[in-house]
């Protein structure tokens, strides 16, 4: 079952690289939150109740509901529906994404370790590369936000790769990261003009 969820997660990443409608980004982020919840619940066998509540809150409450809601609000405010000013066309981005996937497979297999799950390592690396790709290749602030959220998901998957129990300390770290994500979205996302790339007041 976990493997299907992981494959679905990889599909969302491919779709993210090729999508141009902002609403699709929001849906994909929400779906990723849901998939992460499923993967975590199936993977973490020895988890205690407090940690379980933490994980469900992180994935369902924040990643699936709150963050997509805030993203929708930002998109609604900006009135922009498509990523029309990205630095490179979607097709090339898709090629980069496939390249990133291959690189992740090669890297994960060259880093074989008896303690960690190679599938998790592969998908975590691919998620990380996709997030970085979005930040580097897109020019809109909203795309950068989405890239950041994808990197947060990569961190979550990395922390799952290390074992069947997710310690509270890692949970606190991830929750703090999510809190910062929500702060960025809620505070800055709604104040800055997310439909522009004109953050150029500060320069030499």
């Amino acid at each position, binding site marked *: 079952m976990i493997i299907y969820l992981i494959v679905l997660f990889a599909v969302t990443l491919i779709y993210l690289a090729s999508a141009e409608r902002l609403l699709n980004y929001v849906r994909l982020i929400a779906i990723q939150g849901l998939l992460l919840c499923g993967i975590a619940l199936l993977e973490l066998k020895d988890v205690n109740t407090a940690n379980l509540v933490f994980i469900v809150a992180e994935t369902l409450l924040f990643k699936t509901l709150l963050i997509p809601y805030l993203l929708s609000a930002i998109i609604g405010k900006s009135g922009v529906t498509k990523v029309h000013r990205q630095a490179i066309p979607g097709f090339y981005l898709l090629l980069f994404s496939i390249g990133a996937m291959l690189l992740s497979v090669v890297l994960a297999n*060259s*880093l074989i*370790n*008896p*303690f*960690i799950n190679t599938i998790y390592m592969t998908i975590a690396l691919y998620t*990380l590369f996709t997030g970085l790709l979005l*930040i580097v290749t897109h020019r809109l*602030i909203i795309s*950068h*936000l989405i*890239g*950041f959220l994808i*990197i*947060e998901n*990569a*961190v979550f998957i*990395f*922390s799952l*790769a*290390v*074992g*069947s*129990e*997710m*310690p509270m*300390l*890692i949970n*606190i*770290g991830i929750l*703090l*990261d999510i809190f*910062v*994500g929500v*702060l*960025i979205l809620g505070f*800055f996302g709604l*104040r*800055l003009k997310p439909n522009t790339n004109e*953050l150029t*007041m*500060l320069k*030499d």
Partner: protein
Amino acid sequence: MLLLFFITAVLMVVLIFLLRNRTITKFISIGYAIMHILLSVYCWSNQNFTELRYFTFNSTGVLLLSILSVLAIPTLYHGFIYTRGNDLKKFNIYHGALITLMTFMSGAYLANGMTVLWIFVEATTLAVALLIYHDRTEMALEATWKYVFICSAGIALAYLGILFLGFIYGREDAASLTFSSLSVLINQANPMYLKIAFLFVLIGFSTKMGLFPMHTVTIDAHSVAPPPVSALISTTLMNVGFLAIYRVYTLFSSSSILPFMNRVLIFAGLLSLLVAAGYMLKAKHLKRMLAYSSLENMGLVAIATGVGGSGYYAAILLIVLHSFAKSSLFYQMGQLSRVLGTFRLDDCGNYMKLYPAGSLVLITGLFCILAIPPSGLFISEFLMMKGLVNNGQWFVLITAIILLCFVIYAMSTRFMHIIFSNPRQYPEFTPSGKVRPVETVTQFLLLGVVIAICFYQPQFLVDIINQSLSLLPR
């Protein structure tokens, strides 16, 4: 004691927002500074003692904590002056956020494990965001957004590095491990994991240390942050980033990847120097120029660490002295903007006539920050270069010297213009702002320490730096 410190700090911040009284806020802030000094004294007298499981008073942490204690008083003092004209809400937010930031930095200095250190570093981002956004302008919003976004992305990468450390250990409680328990496992680890972990940690925590390639975040933050806040971001917060990288470096130094780490640090250091020199030559904003100077100094720290041997001592000494010299220059920038009403180079001039005490700080600070004798920074840069000569790293040495010449030229010409020339834009401009010379005393004291270190290094300082280096290969 540490628990008491954290609880009191939280209560102080809560009281600031509950009581909403300017005088009480001032008293609370001064009380916090005194409490911080007491904490430093306690940590000095209980070195290597562990409290609350996740905090150990080791030498590097205690040294950096003490620097924060020393800078807390002038930062609060200049902060009181800066926020004088603010409404009560902004005044309280500023001082509440400042106490929060100093508490988070203290936690980061004393953390004995990577995850706890990471949590405190991440938390500093939130406090700094409040302080950068203090003036509520569009530029402040842009700078805060860039700071929070790039720091958060960078720190997420650093977290991946920490998780790679967990893969070495292979158990779910890896993140809770202390540096000392991890050090036992390092020699059995796959070097590839160590290299990846180091790269992630270096890139991630570079956002805080202000090192290339993540330096841009702090440069923009300096343009708009209140000068006393810039003084903290450029010194004690950069020290937090340095500490995180230094802890991992120390941890991995017993493994086979030491030459790799040294090469990466020297490369990052040289690139930092190159970027700093290039941008300082075209700098038009004084605080941005000082921010590039911090990039240059952090580049030197990275090179000194990568050199090894005497370079290690040079790196720590440079961190200590840079904190004092740079903070005094940033405090002076606050006064300069009150006198001249601007940070733009073209609008500045005749500072010697308008405020001689401030001009003396600028001249002394210039000598200190450029490591020109009698600056104590000269000792650290000399030790770094000696290490480069001993290692036969002539290319690095010559490149660094050439780039430093550009830095010296850029800073000297700009400072001399401010002090002695007429403003380029409006030569007849006569600003009305006044600063009392007594307000400059703290800056002279800090610069005095930097100069004194050139002639005499107290034994307690030498001892604690040597203790910090005890785990490194000599």
